[in-house]
C-alpha cells in the first residue's frame, strides 16, 4: 500500500464548528488530492495540490479550504461545518502529472458526520 495516512479516521461534530482533516504521505509524491464520496455521486474532487503552497479548486470546493506547507502533509479544513458536508473524505497522491501511467493512490478515508 502507498504510504498514505488519513486522520482522524472517524469524526462526529456539530454544525458550525471548524474541522480539519489531515493527509500524511511518506512517498514524497508531488501531487495530492482531496475527494469526497457520497452515494449516487461516486468520488468528487474538492481541492488538489501540485506542490508545496500550490493548490487549486476542484469540482466541489465551496465551503472547503486546503493548505500544504510541507510535501508530506495536505490539510482539508471545513471552516464552519454543515450537515451537507457529512461524507467520507479520501486523500490521494500521485507522482507525475502523466495521463495514467502514474495513477492516483488513495488513503483509507475519513468518515465525517456533522450533526
Amino acid at each position, binding site marked *: 500500500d502507498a504510504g498514505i495516512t488519513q486522520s482522524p479516521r472517524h469524526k462526529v461534530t456539530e454544525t458550525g464548528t471548524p474541522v480539519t482533516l489531515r493527509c500524511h504521505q511518506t512517498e514524497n509524491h508531488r501531487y495530492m488530492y482531496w475527494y469526497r464520496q457520497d452515494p449516487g455521486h461516486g468520488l468528487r474532487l474538492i481541492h*488538489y495540490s501540485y506542490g508545496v503552497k500550490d493548490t487549486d479548486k476542484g469540482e466541489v470546493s465551496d465551503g472547503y479550504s486546503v493548505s500544504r506547507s510541507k510535501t508530506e502533509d495536505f490539510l482539508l479544513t471545513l471552516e464552519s461545518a454543515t450537515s451537507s458536508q457529512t461524507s467520507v473524505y479520501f486523500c490521494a497522491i500521485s507522482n507525475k502529472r502523466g495521463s495514467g501511467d502514474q495513477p492516483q493512490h488513495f488513503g483509507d478515508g475519513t468518515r465525517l458526520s456533522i450533526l
Partner: protein
Amino acid sequence: QQQVKQSPQSLIVQKGGISIINCAYENTAFDYFPWYQQFPGKGPALLIAIRPDVSEKKEGRFTISFNKSAKQFSLHIMDSQPGDSATYFCAAIVNTGTASKLTFGTGTRLQVTL
C-alpha cells in the same frame, strides 16, 4: 451533470460467470480511462486502465473494452469469484495545466454469489 455515466448501479453474478459494467463519457478531452476497485472501509485501488487509442486491454481475468467513436467503455470480469465482490468505479482523466484530474462514475456494487 455527471460527466461519466456508469451502469448498472448494482450487479449480482454467480461464481464463474461474467460481470459486465458499462460507462459512457461526454468530454472528448479525457485522455485515459482507469477502473478502480473499492472494498468496504478502504480507499479505491487502481485495477486496470486504458488509453483511448487502444480498443481492448486485458490483465488476467479483467478486460477493458473501449469504443472511442461511441464514447463508451466497459469492464468485463471473467470467471467472477466471491473475492471480486466490491464496488467498481470507472473514471476518466483529463490533464490540466497543473495536474491530472480524475472524474469518477457513480459506482457499481458487484456481488458474486456461490
